[in-house]
């Protein structure tokens, strides 16, 4: 079994949902509040994970553009839950040592007084280990 | 060639609508399978009482196979679903009692699957032949 296959299986396993259920309607991307900011849109995550094309997803900043609002999860008619793939790819990326998007010491500079507490906590969870 | 080559006795219950027709098709296509297989025609696989299976073993059958329409295609809509549960449980029980589970089988054969019927029978006869005579479930009175 090749490495990329393993990666695919890992991503699917950690996502816990089945990309083959996708009927490619695009409602996830339609509903995504941040879709136009993303290089790879939610529906592409599903499709590319199914193809095993995971490297490009790991190297795009789309994985950090996802707000984890779960609108796509809520509205997907087939129970594919695209956000879980995005999360899974992000986790796969972060788990590689030193590949964090943000380092902990970078964060104080980015903080804004008006930023809600919850967002700060989420940011720590999402962008670092 | 061995003189006393073991010839198993195989009873095949076939439902009238799919598997019996599949067996006919195997014949029409001249597909060979061992003469050890003898077919009993029943209206539906759900007509096969577990008692018939035991009776066959009692009377010295070495293997019993039940063939019916594929699940979902039953002529009587639901018959083979019931047969499936009954036979699964019966076979599991026989296995639990230490009877070789390879002597029993359920196979879904449609009226169009003559080749599958012949292949199934070839395979089943080979399996049972390998096991040899049925000694664990037979009534000695019935054995000549």
């Amino acid at each position, binding site marked *: 079994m090749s490495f990329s296959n393993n990666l695919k299986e890992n991503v699917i396993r950690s996502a816990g949902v089945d990309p083959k259920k996708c009927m490619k309607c695009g409602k996830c991307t339609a509903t995504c509040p941040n879709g136009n900011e993303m290089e790879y849109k939610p529906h592409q995550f599903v499709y590319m994970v199914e193809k095993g094309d995971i490297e490009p997803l790991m190297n795009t900043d789309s994985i950090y553009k996802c707000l984890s609002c779960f609108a796509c999860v809520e509205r997907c008619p087939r129970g594919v839950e695209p956000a879980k793939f995005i999360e899974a790819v992000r986790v796969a990326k972060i788990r590689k040592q030193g590949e964090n998007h943000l380092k902990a010491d970078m964060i104080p500079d980015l903080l804004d007084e008006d930023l809600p507490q919850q967002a700060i906590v989420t940011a720590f969870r999402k962008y670092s280990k | 060639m061995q003189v006393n080559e073991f010839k198993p006795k195989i009873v095949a219950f076939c439902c009238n609508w799919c598997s019996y027709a599949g067996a006919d098709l195997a014949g029409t296509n001249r597909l060979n399978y061992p003469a050890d297989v003898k077919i009993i025609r029943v209206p539906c696989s759900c007509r096969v009482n577990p008692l*018939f299976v035991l009776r*066959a073993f009692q009377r010295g059958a070495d293997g019993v196979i039940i063939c019916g329409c594929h699940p979902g295609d039953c002529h009587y809509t639901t018959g083979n679903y019931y047969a499936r549960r009954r036979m699964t449980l019966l076979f599991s029980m026989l296995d639990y009692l230490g009877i070789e589970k390879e002597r029993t089988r359920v196979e879904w054969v449609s009226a169009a699957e003559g080749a599958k019927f012949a292949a199934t029978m070839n395979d089943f006869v080979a399996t049972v032949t390998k096991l040899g005579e049925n000694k664990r479930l037979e009534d000695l009175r019935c054995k000549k």
Partner: protein
Amino acid sequence: MQRIGVFVCHCGTNIAGTVDVKAVAEAMKYENGVVFSTDYQYMCSEAGQNIIKDAIKEHKLTGIVVCSCSPRMHEATFRKAAQSVGLNPYMVEIANIREQCSWIHKDMATGTEKAIILARTAVAKVHLNAPLTSGETPVVKRALVIGGGIAGIQTALDIADAGFPVDIVEKLPTIGGKMSQIDKTFPTLDCAACILTPKMVDAAQNENIKIYSYSEVSGVKGFVGNFEVTIKRKARFVDETKCTGCGLCTEKCPQKRVPNEFNLGMDQRRAIYIPFAQAVPKIATIDADYCTMLKTGKCGVCSKVCTAGAIDYTQKDEFITEKYGAIVVATGFNPIKLDKYDEYAYSQSKDVITSLEFERLTNAAGPTAGKLLRPSDGKHPHKIVFVQCVGSRDTRECGKSYCSKICCMYTAKHAMLTREKYPDTEVYVFYIDVRTPGKNFDEFYRRAVEEYGVHYIKGMVGKVIPEGDKLIVRASDLISNEQLTIDADLVVLAAAIEPDKTARPLATMLTASMDTNDFFTEAHPKLRPVESPTAGIFLSGACQGPKDIPETVAQASAAAAKVIGLLVKDKMKNNACVAHSDENMCNGCSNCAKVCAYNAISYVDKEFRMPDRTTRVRRVAVVNDAVCQGCGACTVTCPSGAMDLKGFSNKQIMAEVDAICK
């Protein structure tokens, strides 16, 4: 003791090539009970059959075994031959020594040996055969059609044309169904009313058709050929025999604020109403939920203005019972409720409408007199977004996992008609797939794109946000891989369709099976698509699955053909190989009835004399011969062995087993 004759067929060389037929015939002579055994070139030929007939007469045979081809081939032939000389046809057994012997074995010794065993097995079975007679039940020559939509109307017309009386039961005050609400029909764009209303009139005027409108089926008893149906005629507070349908009452009624269901609540009607101008029967109905007279006892305007004196405030629900030989289910469909689809803002904005509402908005008899106007402000919309697959192909709880089949085509129709009437309107259609299998269907869809300039976008709408007098539609365009935002004036949702809610309780009454989506199941998905597995119940239209009008009409006529085929018979011959319960052994445990797919088993309390001369009442199973199909599921589920199958009895099958294993 049986006197058995054995007849071995050569089938030319088909059998004789690998089976020593003479040896088989000879071996059979020594079998217990065999008094005659012979072989012949072609047993199925006239000469061969004569050998059988002569032997039956000469040797007073009580049973015969024909060793020949498959029983699926010639069992009927030999049964007929036996019957012609007075032998019960069920005393004939076939040993299949061609398909299951001579054709699959190559050497004579093997073939002959197996043929002898097969013949012996058949002899063993004949020993236990009993003469069987098929029961006969008279057929009531009248059909019932439940549902008065295009499916029900077409079925009724076809049955009536064949000369049989047929009743239509329709729950609404008029027949016509969904098609009466539709404006135009794809792919020819002829007006629905122009082709439907003549059929409605035909149905009303046909001597053989009786329409029970505003009525429901409330009980079904009996079985194929002999159903007894109770029909509830709901009180409409108008004497049907007197009302002329002049409509004066519907103009004078002071209660004007009743949502008009025919226009899907987009306008209002009176408490006494005729659903639409071409209603059949054209009789007024009082809506008891809104009528002031019925609620408070004060008003009576309709009664005063009615010159025919048809108004009767004291009318009660009436139950009538009628006998039928066949029942056709044509209960149709409804669009699903969209209250679970908040993302499309259906309940928030009046300008988000369903496709059926769009039909009414474009219909000349609709709330806007055919002008396409926004329900909120009556303005002409300039940008319309159509969303397909709303609730269809949706595996969530609120949706339907299946494709609703008709939406692609009617959306193309709506888009095309909009562009034709109002070329200044921009029309967007969001689709997952465009499914157009059907005659001239894909051409129709391409015309919408190529000739009418409808924007088809592969993608889905994610959210509709009402903002001012606009609807902000956020969607995806998967081909250009971008998100779109469209400020639309009107959003039309192609809601999934589901079986009518009345279908489930009806199925229970009819003991007709349904799938998990509440569509009726057909007896065979390919070969018996218009029959229910329950004998005598037939399926017409969308109650069996999503269908467009041509398909519905085709199925309606097919169902009618099946009904006619049943009704032309004076008596129905039942299957002779039916289950039978021995009441002395029956426990009355109901397990047999649970596995019966045909509801052929019922229970009666019967009094038994006990050995001590007391009597005891026990519940015992009774099989209805007319309904039993002879599968045998019940025989195996019966723990006491009370239930057995004629022609394939426990003892017969075990005798076969014994003979094979000898």
